């Protein structure tokens, strides 16, 4: 029974893949009053469907390790259903239905974690519903103008209408991707969700926001071009969006550096990474959109890998804070490589594909001559090195800081299989960036009526600003690495391994187990002394939202006093209103 349920669940997790591979032809479903839902797979939605198809089974595999939990499985299936509906939808109603199903089923999955507190759960659902309702408002606005719920209906609107739609939709989707200052829910929920579900949230659900944002370039109001033409090579709205993205990326990166909890760090890093995508979408050129798609792909793979690996660590040690872990490299070597590959991808280092994505986005920005944005983006992406380093140093290097970290063993195979698959995918993508361009991204660009980027060979990433060859790069690096290592080992001499982890040059002192040798949480603390970063880290939006909640509650309290318990008061009020209305109406003469 247990096994059958699990197998069924595993099968369910392949539904996106099944949809992706077997979908043919459009499907329509009539709702009411002339509203018809149409479903079809466009190149763009196929791209995101592919991400889903990759991600869903990979998260399902480690989930099988837990005790079989039917309701969680059911919710997960609903979530997948919602996301597929969303991606397939050809009109906004279907999109909204999928969007909402995704929202509430993910919320219910979030509740299954014992760590979810009231604030986390509430902020998750309220922000997401706010996003959904903004989307609904935008849909209705569009409908009121065009009498049409189809997504293509946004073409050819007036500037003012476009502006309204742009604001509504971008707010909706920016909440979903967690752009500042609408990101409050992201760190909380990613942190508190069940460990594997965090992977889903970060890797896949944030991509749905990106999918939504992809329609925004259609909506850029073009009325300001005469003002902006001189300064900007592009629409003002795109410029604003790009700045939102890059500010999000920068601030979230600094916040990530200052986190002391692995999952919170990854949450902020998700915000930052998605911020790059928003920036690239703001640029809106084919290079930048290609970069955004590439980044979406890479970020999906990387975050899946990292969250699954971290989940494995948490499973094995029960700890999640950098201060409690350490020195797992020898005990969890595969996980170490998982995180290593993950952070290399995250930091956008060559030769892994994170670099290809960043390269496309940078070139997109340079091509648009948006250099200040480029500078800010570089700031964010170099600052991300710090948190990447923290992420690998904290758990794996340094010294074990808790009894569990000293005795942990490698994560179970259910966790390792997805890790290994994802590592393989990342490395392969890094070697063959041209393949991703050619096979995955160019069809989408063609589908969006944009110039495809094109790739001369599968190994080459090529733009009109120049490109690079993944195979050459990888082989040079690997050859040198192998040669120098071999050379070094050949003339090995008296190389010996320290007999104790405490054999450190420690100013002549002898460190012991009690000496605080692990630098895990302290990393990044000194960044506060840099004025800009210190300022950013001192400020949060929590206060604002808490204040808003407080004010609403207070208002509710004030109005609530009307609802007393004395029937005479109720009647007195009714009679008074009657009298007053009657008098006013009689005097003014109705």
């Amino acid at each position: 029974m247990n096994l059958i349920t699990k197998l069924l669940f595993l099968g369910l997790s392949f539904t996106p893949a099944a949809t992706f591979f077997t979908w043919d032809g459009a499907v329509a479903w009539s709702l009411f009053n002339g509203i018809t839902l149409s479903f079809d797979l466009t190149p763009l939605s196929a791209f995101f469907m592919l991400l889903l198809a990759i991600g869903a089974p990979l998260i399902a595999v480690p989930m099988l390790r837990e005790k079989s939990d039917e309701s969680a499985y059911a919710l997960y299936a609903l979530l997948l259903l919602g996301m597929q509906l969303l991606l397939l939808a050809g009109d906004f109603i279907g999109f909204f239905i999928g969007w909402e199903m995704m929202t509430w089923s993910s919320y219910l999955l979030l509740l299954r974690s014992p760590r979810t507190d009231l604030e986390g759960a509430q902020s998750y659902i309220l922000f997401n519903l706010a996003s959904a309702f903004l989307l609904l408002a935008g849909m209705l606005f569009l409908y009121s103008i065009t009498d049409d719920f189809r997504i293509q209906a946004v073409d050819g609107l007036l500037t003012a209408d476009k502006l309204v739609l742009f604001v509504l939709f971008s707010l909706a989707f920016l909440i979903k991707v967690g752009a500042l200052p609408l990101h409050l829910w992201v760190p909380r929920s990613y942190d508190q969700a069940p460990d594997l579900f965090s992977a889903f949230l970060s890797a896949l659900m944030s991509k749905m926001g990106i999918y939504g944002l992809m329609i925004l370039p259609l909506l850029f109001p073009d009325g300001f071009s005469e003002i902006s033409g001189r300064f900007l090579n592009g629409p003002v709205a795109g410029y604003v969006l790009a700045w939102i993205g890059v500010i999000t990326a920068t601030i979230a990166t600094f916040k990530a550096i200052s986190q002391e909890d692995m999952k919170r760090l990854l949450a902020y890093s998700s915000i930052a990474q998605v911020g790059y995508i928003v920036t690239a979408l703001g640029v809106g050129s084919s290079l930048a959109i290609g970069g955004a798609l590439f980044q979406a792909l890479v970020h999906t793979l990387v975050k899946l890998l990292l969250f699954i690996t971290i989940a494995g660590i948490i499973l094995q040690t029960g700890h999640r804070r950098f201060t409690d872990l350490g020195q797992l490299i020898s005990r969890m070597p595969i996980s170490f490589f998982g995180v290593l590959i993950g952070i290399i991808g995250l930091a956008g280092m060559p030769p892994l594909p994170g670099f290809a994505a960043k390269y496309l986005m940078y070139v997109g920005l340079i091509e648009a001559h948006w250099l200040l944005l480029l500078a800010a983006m570089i700031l964010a992406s170099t600052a991300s090195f710090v948190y990447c380093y923290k992420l690998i140093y904290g758990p794996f290097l340094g010294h074990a800081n808790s009894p569990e970290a000293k005795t942990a063993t490698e994560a179970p195979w259910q966790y390792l299989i997805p890790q290994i698959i994802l590592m393989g995918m990342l490395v392969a993508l890094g070697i063959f960036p041209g393949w991703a361009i050619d096979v995955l991204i160019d069809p989408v660009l063609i589908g969006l009526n944009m110039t495809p980027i094109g790739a001369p060979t599968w190994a080459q990433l090529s733009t009109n600003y120049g490109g690079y060859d993944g195979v050459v790069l990888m082989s040079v690096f690997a050859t040198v690495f192998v040669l120098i290592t071999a050379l070094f080992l050949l003339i090995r001499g008296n190389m010996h391994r320290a007999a104790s982890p405490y054999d450190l040059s420690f100013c002549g002192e002898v460190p012991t187990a009690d000496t605080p040798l692990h630098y895990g949480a302290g990393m990044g603390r000194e960044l506060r002394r840099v004025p800009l970063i210190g300022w950013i880290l001192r400020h949060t939006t929590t206060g604002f939202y808490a204040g808003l909640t407080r004010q609403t509650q207070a208002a509710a309290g004030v109005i609530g006093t009307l609802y007393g318990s004395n029937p005479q008061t109720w009647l007195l009020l009714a009679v008074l209103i009657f009298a007053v209305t009657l008098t006013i109406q009689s005097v003014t003469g109705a």
Partner: protein
Amino acid sequence: MLEVLELFDRPAVLHSIYLIGSLILFFIGLYGLLAKRHLLKIFVSIEIMELAVYLILIAIATTPGETAPILSDGFTAFTSMSDPIPQALTLTAIVIGVAVTALGTSMAIQYHRLTGKVSVGEMTELKD
């Protein structure tokens, strides 16, 4: 003197008097409803208000000189008879009103037995 009495026979005057009287009654009831705390007094007030409304109906619908709407004693046509409908309505309404009042008072008595309270203001059990 007679003219004065005749004046009273005129429907408009008579109706005004009835109307004013009923309205006074209505407001007495309303006052009681809003100002008195005792449950039974409140029901009495409600009953007074209701009666005031009935009075208005009966009084305004009837003009002096009309006879009761009963077809007997050789009366074969509905001439100069008062409108029968208001009376029927009033009778029905009175029945309903009695039912409501009876229900209310019985509840009030039971409530008093259970809690010993008679005042509306003391009914705060339901407030959180």
